[in-house]
C-alpha cells in the first residue's frame, strides 16, 4: 500500500513538495515509486538552474520505464540530492525521506494550486 504523508503538497504528476520557509524540497510520491518499480537512475538538474511550475526538470528511470519530473513550483535549484546519483534505489526505500531537489521558491502562491495528502490520495485511488 502506498503511503501518503500529511503536511506535504502534491501535484497531479505525482511530485510532492515539503515547504520550509522560502525553500521547498521536491521529490516523487510513494505512490509514484511503487508504480515505477526499481529506480535505476535519477536525472537531476544542476544547482542554479531555474525550474518552472508545470515544466520538466529531470527524469526518474526504471529498467522498462522513464518518468519525467515536473516541477510543482517555480524557483531556483539550490541543492540536489547527490546521494541519488549512486544510490537511486533510495527513492524506493523511502520516497518522502529522499527528496530530489531543493528549490528557492519564486512564487509561493503556486503552492495553493497543489493538493493536500487527502486530495492526492483520492486521485491515486
Amino acid at each position, binding site marked *: 500500500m502506498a503511503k501518503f504523508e500529511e503536511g506535504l503538497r502534491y501535484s497531479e504528476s505525482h511530485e510532492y513538495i515539503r515547504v520550509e520557509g522560502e525553500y521547498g524540497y521536491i521529490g516523487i510520491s510513494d505512490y509514484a515509486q511503487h508504480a515505477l518499480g*526499481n529506480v*535505476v*537512475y535519477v536525472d537531476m538538474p544542476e544547482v542554479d538552474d531555474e525550474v518552472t511550475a508545470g515544466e520538466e526538470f529531470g527524469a526518474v*528511470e526504471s*529498467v*522498462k520505464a522513464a518518468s519525467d519530473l515536473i516541477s510543482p513550483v517555480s524557483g531556483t535549484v539550490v541543492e540536489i540530492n547527490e546521494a541519488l546519483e549512486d544510490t*537511486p*534505489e533510495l527513492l524506493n526505500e523511502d520516497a518522502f525521506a529522499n527528496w530530489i531537489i531543493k528549490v528557492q521558491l519564486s512564487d509561493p502562491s503556486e503552492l495553493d494550486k497543489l493538493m493536500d495528502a487527502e486530495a492526492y490520495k483520492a486521485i491515486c485511488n
Partner: protein
Amino acid sequence: MNRTLYGNLIFELSKKGRKGYSLPQDYDRAHTTAELPEALRRKEAARLPECDELTVVRHYTNLSHNNFGVNDGFYPLGSCTMKYNPIINEEIAGMKAFAGLHPLQPAVTCQGALEVYYNLQQSLAELAGLKEFTLNPCAGAHGELTGLMVIRAYHESRKDTGRTKVLIPDSAHGTNPASAAVCGLEVVEVKSLADGTVDVEHLRQLLNEMGGEVAGMMMTNPNTLGIFEPQVLEITAMVHEAGGLMYYDGANLNALLGECRPGDMGFDVMHINLHKTFSTPHGGGGPGSGPVGVREGLEQFLPTPRVNKIVVNCDGENEPYEWEGYVIDREADSALGSVGSFFGNFAVMLKAYVYILSLGSENIKQVGPLATLNANYIKECLKGDYLLPIGGLCKHEVVFDGLVDKSSGVTTMDVAKRLLDYGYHAPTIYFPLLFHESLMIEPTENESKETIDAFIDVMHKIAGEAKTDPELVKTAPHNTPIGRVDDVLAAKQPVTTYWKSIAES
C-alpha cells in the same frame, strides 16, 4: 540451439603473440608511420585480442549456438514479420561482382548494380501504389525520419512554415513520435477507441483546432493491434482537407500484399521495411533497409543520390541507335538533402529484389492472404485460454491480453519465458500499450499448419501449467543457456565494456 551457456569473451581467449591473419610481405617500406609527428600517434597500442584462426572460428561458432534464429524454429514475434529468409537471396547478394563495387565508380562500370537499384525502386512503387521510391534509408526508423523530412520539405517549398505538428495515434509504435521529434515536429496524440482504432471524432476535433499547423499524420495500417483501420479513407481525406499529408508506416505492410495498397488508401509518403515484408534477414538487429515512397508531385523532395533511367541517342558506326541505361544523380537539387553517405544498404536491396523476382507477380499476391489466414487461425484456436480483447478479423497478427484465467498470477512475461523452454521464440510482449498483458503473435505466411498447430498445443499446455503448477511458469525458462537476468543491476551499474568489467572484478 545449445542449451548450455558457452559464455566466453574473445578477450579471455587471447594470448600474446598469436595471430589469425596473413598479409603479403613484399611491399615498398620506404615510408613508415614513424614519419608522422609523435603528437599525431597514439601512445599505447589498442588492446585487441591476439588469437589464432581456429580459436576465433570456434568461439563465434559456439556463440552462435547460444542464439535462436528463424532457421532454428518458429519466431512469432509480433510486429517484426520474422518470415523465412531465402538462401538464394544470400547467394546472389554475396556475388563477388557486387561485393567489390566502389560506390563512387563511374556509372558506366556498374550498370548491373544500378539496374537492380532502379528496378527495385519501380517494383516497390507498383506494390505500394505510389510514384517514386528512394532506397537510401538504412532501416525502418531511418525511413520514417526521411519520410517526415519529405513532408516538411514539401510544406517549406510552399512557404507554409507554420505546419509544425504531426498527428500520431496513441497506439503507434514509439518510433513514430521519436522520428517526429528528431525531425523537429511536435507530436499531437490522436486517441483510440476501445477497439484500438483511430477515434475519428477526436481527429476531427484536433483538425478543427489546429488544422493549419498540421504537417501531416502518421498511421500504421493494419494498426499496431493488427486491426485494419476501417475509416482510413475518411481519415486520409480529412487530413488532406486540412492541408496535411498522410504518412504510412510500412511496419505492417505484409498483411496487405495482394489485397490493398497504401497509395490507394490515400497515403502520400511511406516507408517499407525490406527486412520485414521483403524477406531480408534481421541479422540480430540490422542491417535493414527502409525505402521511402511518395505519390506523384513529391518526387523532388526525395533525398539524393538518385538513380535514374535514361535513353540516349547515339551515332553508331553504321546507323544511329538508342542506348538505354542508368545514371546516378549525386548532386540533384533535392530540397531535402541526403540521409546517408552513399545509396543505403545495397546488399539488402539485392536480397529484396531477388525475393520479388522469385515470387513474381503471381505469388506476391498470396503473401498477405496466407499471413492473415495463419494469424486468424491462431486467434480462433487460442481464444479459449488467452484473453482476446478485440474480436472480429485481425490481419497478419493477433493481440491477446494475457491468460483468460489470471488467478494464479502468471503473467504474459511468464508465458513468454516458458515458450522458450519449448523451443519457440517468444511473441512480442507488453506492446501494444493499450492492454496490460499484451501478447502479440505474428506467424507470417511461411509457417505450415503443422508448425502452427504444435505452437497452439504448447500455448494450451502453458495455460494448463499456469493452473496446475504456476511456479514452474513463473520461474521459466529452465531449459535455456541462461535464466532470467538481473536487468536492474545492468542498468544501475552499467558495465558495457570488457575493460570496465575487469577493472571492477
